[in-house]
């Protein structure tokens, strides 16, 4: 693409990544969560692929490493579930409610939102966000590499 598109894409990329992290981390307070934030982060990488070409992006992030990133997300999900099985009664039990980390129970009704709440939900949001970022970005990267040799 033209240098104008490349410059704007490089300039706006960190802001999209930060917005993706915001949506993932506030998934238990505001509309959003792991899936939506992960889709936003994957769209940032897709924007880089469109602007710079798939081969230049592949030098920085191979699809194997993106796939490993995705697998780590899935592993965190299952490990949190198994910890719930061991520490409490059942698989995926919300064992962090009432604990100091992420365990503050918000007051009933309308409240401004406490970031340190939600039990295991923020951890699972991060895990699913990693999964979606890695999965969608790797699929689009592989498809763009299979498409042809332009740029």
């Amino acid at each position, binding site marked *: 693409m033209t240098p104008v598109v490349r410059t704007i894409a490089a300039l706006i990329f960190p802001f999209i990544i930060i917005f993706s992290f915001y949506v993932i981390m506030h998934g238990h*307070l*505001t*509309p959003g*969560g792991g*899936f939506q934030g992960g*889709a936003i982060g994957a769209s940032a990488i897709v924007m880089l692929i469109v602007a710079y070409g798939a081969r230049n992006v592949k030098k920085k992030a191979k699809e194997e490493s993106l796939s490993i990133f995705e697998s780590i997300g899935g592993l965190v999900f299952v490990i949190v579930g198994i910890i719930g099985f061991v520490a409490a009664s059942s698989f995926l039990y919300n064992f962090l409610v009432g604990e100091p980390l992420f365990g503050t129970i*918000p007051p009933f*009704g*309308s*409240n*401004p*939102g406490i970031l340190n709440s939600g039990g295991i939900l923020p951890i699972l949001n991060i895990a699913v966000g990693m999964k*979606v970022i890695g*999965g*969608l970005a790797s*699929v689009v990267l*592989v*498809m763009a590499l*299979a498409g042809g040799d332009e740029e």
Partner: protein
Amino acid sequence: MIYSIPFYTVIILILVGMYAMIFRRNLIKMAIGLTIVESAVNLFLVTLGYREGGVAPIYTNLPSGIKIPEGMVLPVPQALTLTSIVIGVAILALMLSLSIMIYRHYGTLDSKKVRRLKE
């Protein structure tokens, strides 16, 4: 009748997608039809759980004067819609990859011609 317009919109979308899937032979067009049907199903799930004048079931900065169970839309259909959207994206990715490989192998995307095994 006039209050059920979202349901009839769902029906029209499903019929458009089914038409593309039944009467077209291009694999990419069939994938587009399947995606339209899937969007229609997501819209149907969301409209099933809508309550008259309800707000989203989120307590952060909730406007005052909302009755707690009755003034909010149902959360379970929205959660299942969220699951369905991500599964749809994954299935679309798999379908398009298979279409790319079929085009490379047979040189065509026509489903009638693909059926004939070449080599």
